[in-house]
């Protein structure tokens, strides 16, 4: 491995590190920062990527120190060269990091602002810190791993849209805010800790797993899909008890989540759930699976 002084060598994948130099005074629209936009670029090109800071356009280089390292690197399924992007610092004022990324790996060491990974289509976004609101909103594919907690509207639909997350996986080690997975259509969201009110609001399909205590109104207006509560919570009266059983798909989902680093006790894989159908105010084909206890 060697550090490139200027232009990146196009024949060699690179690890690109953006170290925060100064915290911006106002929120920054940072959708230009994702693995695809920095791949095969030299340091100066990356520094020149635009950032909207408030109402003025500035450069990545104004806020980050850029390091480009040539590595053995990784190649994606099409055997394309891919840069691995590492961001370091408190990025809570940076919005839309990893916005729409479709491949590659982006690792953030620090807290991120809202809309991280929104419209993401592939690749992996790892956040070693707290995530803001609208994490993975409208996500279509790929993985988001948060080693902390996330804000409201994880995987949800933006105002005026009927469908939120349509694919991919979001794993949050700690808790999440309100409207977790609201209006999601496909994909998996797993939260290790507690979550706020209205988890799975208006879900059309997909799976939400909540390891901690859920807030109120879980699954309100859900049409289809699955909410798995590993701790008992208060359910709406529009959810009807069906049976106690051990759904087989949970074993597959457990194995997958375990493989992705979502920590659950081994005994969890084979446990029984109480199944409730609802929301009866909608089609009623959704389900909430409640684990009686995790002892």
């Amino acid at each position, binding site marked *: 491995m060697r550090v490139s002084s200027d232009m990146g060598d196009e024949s060699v994948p690179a690890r690109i590190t953006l170290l925060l130099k100064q915290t911006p005074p106002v929120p920054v629209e940072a959708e230009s920062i994702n693995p695809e936009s920095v791949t095969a670029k030299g340091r100066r090109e990356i520094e020149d990527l635009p950032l909207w800071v408030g109402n003025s356009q500035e450069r990545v280089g104004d806020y980050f120190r850029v390091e480009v390292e040539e590595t053995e690197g990784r190649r994606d399924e099409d055997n394309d060269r891919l840069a691995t992007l590492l961001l370091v610092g408190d990025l809570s004022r940076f919005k839309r990091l990893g916005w729409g990324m479709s491949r590659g790996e982006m690792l953030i060491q620090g807290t991120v602002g809202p809309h991280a990974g929104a419209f993401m289509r592939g690749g992996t976004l790892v956040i070693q810190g707290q995530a803001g609101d609208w994490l993975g909103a409208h996500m279509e594919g790929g993985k988001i791993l948060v080693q902390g907690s996330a804000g409201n509207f994880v995987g949800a639909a933006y105002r005026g849209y009927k469908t939120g997350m349509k*694919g991919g996986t979001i794993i949050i080690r700690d808790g999440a805010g309100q409207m977790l997975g609201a209006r999601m259509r*496909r*994909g*998996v969201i797993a939260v290790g800790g507690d979550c706020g009110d209205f988890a799975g609001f208006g879900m059309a399909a997909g*799976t939400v797993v909540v390891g901690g205590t859920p807030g109120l109104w879980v699954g309100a207006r859900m049409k*289809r899909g*699955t909410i798995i509560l590993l701790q008992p919570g208060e359910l709406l009266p529009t959810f009807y008890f069906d049976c106690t*059983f*051990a*759904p*087989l*798909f949970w*074993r*597959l*989902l457990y*194995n*997958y989540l375990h*493989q992705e680093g979502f920590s659950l006790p081994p005994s969890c*894989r084979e446990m029984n759930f109480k199944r409730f159908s609802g929301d009866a105010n909608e089609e009623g*084909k959704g389900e909430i699976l409640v684990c009686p206890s995790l002892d």
Partner: protein
Amino acid sequence: MRLNDVAIEDTFAEAFTMYGARVIITAINEKWANHAALAATGFATSIIGCGVEAGIEGPALSTPDSRPGVACLFFTTSKEDMEKQLLNRIGQAIMTTPTSACYDGLSQDYGQQEQPAAKLKLGSKLRFFGDGYQSSKVINGRRFWRIPVMEGEFLVQEEFTVVKGVGGGNFLILAETAAAALAAAEAAVEAIRAVPGVILPFPGGVVRSGSQVGSRYKFLKASTNVAFCPTLRGIAAKTMLPPGVNAVLEIVIDGLTPDAVAEAMRVGIRAACLKGVRSISAGNYGGRLGKHLFPLRQIVQ
């Protein structure tokens, strides 16, 4: 060439390209996985009369749901036949078995390395049994259908991989007595069971009524292998039986790859060279019809 004082004839087995699929059946324990597997692979000895050749490959080493599982292989002459057979057999034999689930056993092996011959969307057809209450889950990029049944749910993968395999690998055990032929055949079957990627579709892995192409009757495509029938040695126009041979049994092998079939033939022939066996031969059509030829002497070396 002789092996353990048994003559290995200078001939070859002639096999054909068939379409193969591996189905992993899981259940609460091995007993119920085996019940489902036996039913699903039942009456599937020969493509001539059954439309499919199938068998139990062995215990599944790892299963998607981490429960005990059995791997079954199915072979047909067309992708359409495969879909028809698997739909019937999964629907009638596996779904009906308590606690069972059913997964594609080839997606991992062949998904990335080799272009499969086809991907059959079986789960999305079987789902209609759910009468509108079925639902699906996409887990790690694969879709599974949950079909409500009286005992809970039947889980079946949506897509099943079909690859080009080999059907009709074989060898013949020519023995002094029927008992000696059976003992040798059983030893061969036991040895072949350890080879992955192959099945022996006939009962117990052994067939006694090997066939020849055609017959004197217009309505019959295949008939008894006259040249290897001991009771016809004196009257048949042509016999392939050496002196002292009074019984012949055949081992038929279907496999996912030519290498797997060759390996099964190798270990099977070596295990079958027991006392009372005079020679090992193989069935072929002169090498003109089958794509895969397995010369016996080359294989056992």
